[in-house]
């Protein structure tokens, strides 16, 4: 090897750099995937339990990801009641979008992540929602 090459490039640097970058990529992917879901700390709604006995879940807060299927009803004071196809189970659940969230554009076919509270009447009431 040429004298001046002895102290120049070391192939180990490439290996070390490669390992470091893979680790950075993996760590970043995990972190940003987590951080991209603003409701990740809320428990997912177990639809079967809800459909079976919604009263048992009263007062709890859950998250649901799904597609807007239809508007089932509307009241200026209460808001819109929509049907949502849950991604994970293909079940359909009714969700009340209260008038406070009435400014949000909600169209048929859109996918959202909903932060839902089970009201005293057992209704799924949206506390917040974001596009999936």
């Amino acid at each position, binding site marked *: 090897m*040429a*004298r001046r090459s002895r102290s120049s490039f070391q192939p180990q640097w490439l290996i070390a750099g490669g390992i470091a*970058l893979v680790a950075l990529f993996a760590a970043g*992917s995990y972190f940003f*995937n987590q951080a991209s879901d603003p409701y990740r700390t809320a428990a997912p709604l177990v639809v079967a339990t809800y459909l079976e006995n919604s009263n048992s879940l009263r007062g709890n807060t859950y998250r649901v990801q799904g597609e807007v299927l*239809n508007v089932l009803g509307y009241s200026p004071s209460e808001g819109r009641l929509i049907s949502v196809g849950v991604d994970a189970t293909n079940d359909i659940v009714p969700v009340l979008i209260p008038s406070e969230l009435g400014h949000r554009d*909600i169209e048929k076919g859109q996918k959202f992540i909903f932060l839902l509270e089970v009201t005293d009447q057992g209704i799924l009431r949206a506390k917040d929602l974001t596009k999936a």
Partner: protein
Amino acid sequence: MLELQDVSLFVGDEEAILSGVSLKFPRRHFAAIIGPSGCGKSTLLKTIAGIAPGREEGGIRWDTRDLIEHDFAPSEIGYVPQFSIAHEELTARECVAAAVKLRRRGARGEELETLVENTLDEVGLLEFADRLVSVLSGGQKRRLALAMEIASAPAILLCDEVTSGLDAQAENEVVQLLHGLAGHDRLVLSVTHSLRHLDLYDSVAVLHRGVLAYHGPAAELAHYFRVENLEDLYARLEEREPADWAASWNKHSAAYTAEIYESAVAEVIESFTAEELSDEDESAPAKQRRAAPSVELPGAGSQFVTLLARRFRIFFRSRGQLLLQLGLILGFPVLVAIFAWNGLPQVQNLSVGLDLNVVQQLAEASDFLKQASKVGSLVSGIVMFQVILLTLMGANNAGREIAAERLIFEKEKLSGLRCVSYIASKAVFLFLLVAAQSIWMGLFVHFVCGFPGDLGAQLVFLLLVNAAMTSICLGISAWMASAEQASLVSIYLVGFQLPLSGAVLALPDWIGAAVRPFISAYWSWSGVLQTLRGERYYDIVQMVVQTALSPAAKCAWVLCIHVVIGLFLAWTGSRASRMT
């Protein structure tokens, strides 16, 4: 004194390119290294410079210093290669000024000007100082190369075929110049194929197929080889095997080298004080003195500033490059905008009530799907088109950046240029280019097409994809053997971006997961589409594309990693020696 002891060099399958070469050259000496083509002349010079590829055996000492342990300081050695070491777009004065600033700490202002003037004067180039290198004659270019090398006042100057290709007069002038340069307490070794002007050299070394066949006065050459005319010398060499010539030289060398070696030995004795000679162990100050360079190198920051200024000067002097960049910056956004010159069409939403019958719902859904498909493809396509054109610009920016001037860079590295300064100067220059290209693209499409979404975030993703591709292509440029190869690989890389991004056709899951981390276009496309989250277009695009979008922060993160990978590759590639 320069001393080579049984120096051999092996490459490939242990084939000896040099075999047991022993030589001594005093300072203030002008020596020629001659021999037929392929005899190892240039390799010997590179071995002395420490840049010959292969496995070395034997020892090389400079002023009693073992070069394996304490190599030449960059300012101690000047190496003038066969190729041009000056940028064609600069003037001779600018080339020498840059060489001085890259090699001498604190050279600026009047001191710099004086130094440059004196150096140009020394090589007889003062009257052509303000001419562009591209219009200098062959002889003038060689003089310029010598001027750049003596800028750091090296004690040893190695010249590799600096007279080849010159006419007789220019050759005469260059050899006279070298002869003059050797008078300044400097050893000048000149590899040459020419047998003219041998009388000007203090000694001549003859190589034949890697072995030393002669080293002594030029006047004794004809006698030693028993030829009447020196033009018959190379033919005479072929009459015997290299080993025979080596054996013959070992037998007779003392008689021919006595004068040279006496001078060399006297130098060694001079270099030691009586006190140092009386000590068995060399004193630390003496060691330090021998290892210390005569001219201190400038800092990494200073070299960076010099390189950056030179890069901008070259850029603005290259009319072709300037026009190409302007064409790309102004033309590419127009190419994108023509697809939505009158803005993006709107989509009629599906009825959300339950007042339609099944047939009406199906008809509405069918219409919606047609519209959504058209608009979603258009929005996704416009984003991907911007991204692909920016990756193309990135490849064009950096593909040739290092590879095209690799030999000049290698030469400057040998003279003390730090790789980190070089890569940093490239990174800053290219970043400014990338910023101009990306920001104009984003602004043009946003305002001309009325493209919706968060403009600031879009500009960030467009800038990042261009920076990522530029950076990766800079890395490719640093690792490739030629500019053409680097360009080709860079363009292939751009070619793979579109199909592997999954934006047009969805890839099988496992292929997508495996390749997506490496596809900058996907992350930028996905990131720009995420800026439309507040728009209806976001949902429509999601209905149309089959590849899942990634969160914006993750996209930015991956693109930043691509930039870092590219710069890391460029740095490691720049450290690997390419001067062969």
